């Protein structure tokens, strides 16, 4: 097992992956840092030179920045709230004895496998379109005037779309954890006189704590980078009402070609992501056991 030759072999087999990931982490980040300190706009390639922290101040002080950060947090927290709460409820429901549990599971997890652009389009055109979307048709049927979801409540609409996509993930994880709870524990509680709500609160919820932790952690990682849905539905608008931080940076980089500012934004995003990760890991680190 642990002989010198096998250890040497292990190192050799590990190196390519470690080196590549190291390079993948360090080189682009270093470049981003470098660019963030430069005056570099692809549209004006002759305007070069150090800009110190000018890019940062411009980015952070721009009117769009504050809103983007708020939007990002609202998006993440909103989706987390919906997916975790509904996820628990739906997991509880599916865990009950029902007919066709297998098919119910399949139906419930389907939204997760839809690629973001398709999901966004489905919702945008089929449902939320104020002219002939299904929501509009339903409203007309009841006698209300159709609501322009994406125009009037862009961020909320995007939260709805993203939550639809991620609800299956949360549900599946929570269902898996729920099904690992031994029925004997619940039966013992029942013998001890605990009603369904007590049983849920004192036994199921603590058991699910670890799974909830994992769901929150994993989803946060992915939600901070939501992009496709915004691109396809609102393009961050109207104005900047549904622009998140990643989208803002994307705009600076690939639409305005302002490399310097976008790089500064990227650094800010990385810092914010690390802060979030730190607090997340700390606040719920005890529940996680790698």
């Amino acid at each position: 097992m642990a002989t010198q030759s096998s250890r040497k072999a292990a190192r050799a087999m590990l190196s390519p992956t470690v080196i590549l990931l190291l390079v993948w982490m360090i080189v682009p980040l270093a470049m981003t840092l470098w660019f963030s300190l430069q005056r570099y706009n692809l549209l004006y390639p002759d305007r070069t030179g150090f800009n110190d922290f000018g890019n940062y101040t411009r980015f952070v002080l721009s009117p769009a920045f504050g809103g983007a950060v708020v939007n990002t947090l609202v998006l993440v927290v909103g989706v987390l709230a919906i997916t975790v709460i509904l996820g628990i409820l739906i997991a509880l429901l599916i865990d009950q004895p029902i007919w066709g549990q297998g098919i119910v599971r399949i139906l419930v997890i389907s939204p997760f496998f839809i690629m973001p652009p398709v999901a966004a389009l489905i919702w945008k055109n089929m449902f939320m379109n104020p002219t002939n979307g299904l929501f509009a048709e339903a409203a007309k049927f009841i006698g209300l005037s159709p609501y322009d979801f994406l125009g009037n409540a862009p961020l909320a609409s995007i939260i709805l779309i993203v939550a639809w996509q991620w609800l299956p993930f949360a549900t599946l994880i929570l269902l898996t954890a729920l099904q690992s709870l031994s029925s004997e524990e619940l039966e013992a509680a029942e013998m001890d006189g605990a009603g369904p709500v007590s049983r849920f609160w004192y036994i199921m919820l603590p058991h699910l704590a670890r799974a909830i932790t994992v769901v929150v952690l994993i989803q946060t990682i992915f939600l901070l980078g939501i992009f496709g849905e915004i691109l396809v539905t609102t393009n961050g608008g109207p104005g900047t009402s549904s622009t998140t931080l990643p989208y803002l940076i994307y705009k600076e980089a690939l639409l305005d070609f302002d490399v310097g500012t976008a790089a500064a934004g990227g650094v800010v995003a990385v810092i914010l992501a690390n802060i979030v990760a730190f607090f997340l890991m700390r606040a719920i680190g005890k529940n996680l056991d790698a």
Partner: protein
Amino acid sequence: MARHVTTQRRAINSAAAWTVALMLFFPILWTVLTSFKPEAQAVASPPIFLGFDWTLQNYVDVNEQRDYFRYFVNSVIIALGSTALGLVLAIPAAWSMAFVPGRKTKDLLMWMLSTKMMPAVGVLVPIYLLFKTLGLLDTRIGLVVVLTLMNLPIIVWMLYTYFKEIPGEILEAARMDGATLKSEILYVLTPMAVPGIASTVLLNIILAWNEAFWTINLTVTDAAPLTKFISGFSSPQGLFYAKLSAASTMAIAPILIMGWFSQKQLVRGLTFGAVK
């Protein structure tokens, strides 16, 4: 619950569960149905649910126009390519961490996980410029490399958890039987790890196929996969819903079906093995 449940209770639960399930699934269902409608009926008001003239014309149209096939092939190549490259890198790495663990192994695994937490926007600029300089923009190989690196932590983690379930003594027996490292991995480890490797492959294909950030930003037309293709329809031109539905259905069908078969692997893979 190993108790006798009344049929009435079961019926109520089933009704509730099926309602929720169908509500969640409805958008997908609607899309698939619309793909079989003639354009005019697709935007009919009030909407027609089932009583329309079923037709395959939309699928024919989509396949004929706009090089749909090319986008599809690109998605396939990128998904399979990044999975293959990922396996080539990850199988040896996971082997060494699972069977020759050192003191730093756990730290190493956590570090790999952390590379996945880095927001992609943070490196969008340099990667874009790098690719531009190296001529990798809008190339499939460029995308394969990026997606491999994005998903490598997940692949390594998943394989690690599967490898750890293989008894180390069997590999030692192979060594005693005279197997070189290559033989050991080829004849003993891999056959035993096939289910785990298959699960990992499935999960990675799903992740790569649906990846929207890099595939949209690093491609134009040559290497553009389905994500880019679909995102180009963000402003639909009027009577396009049926064809759009057909295109969408074809884009999501393979992954949807794969996903149905890989629920367990999904849980293991995306929670980095923390929930099994």
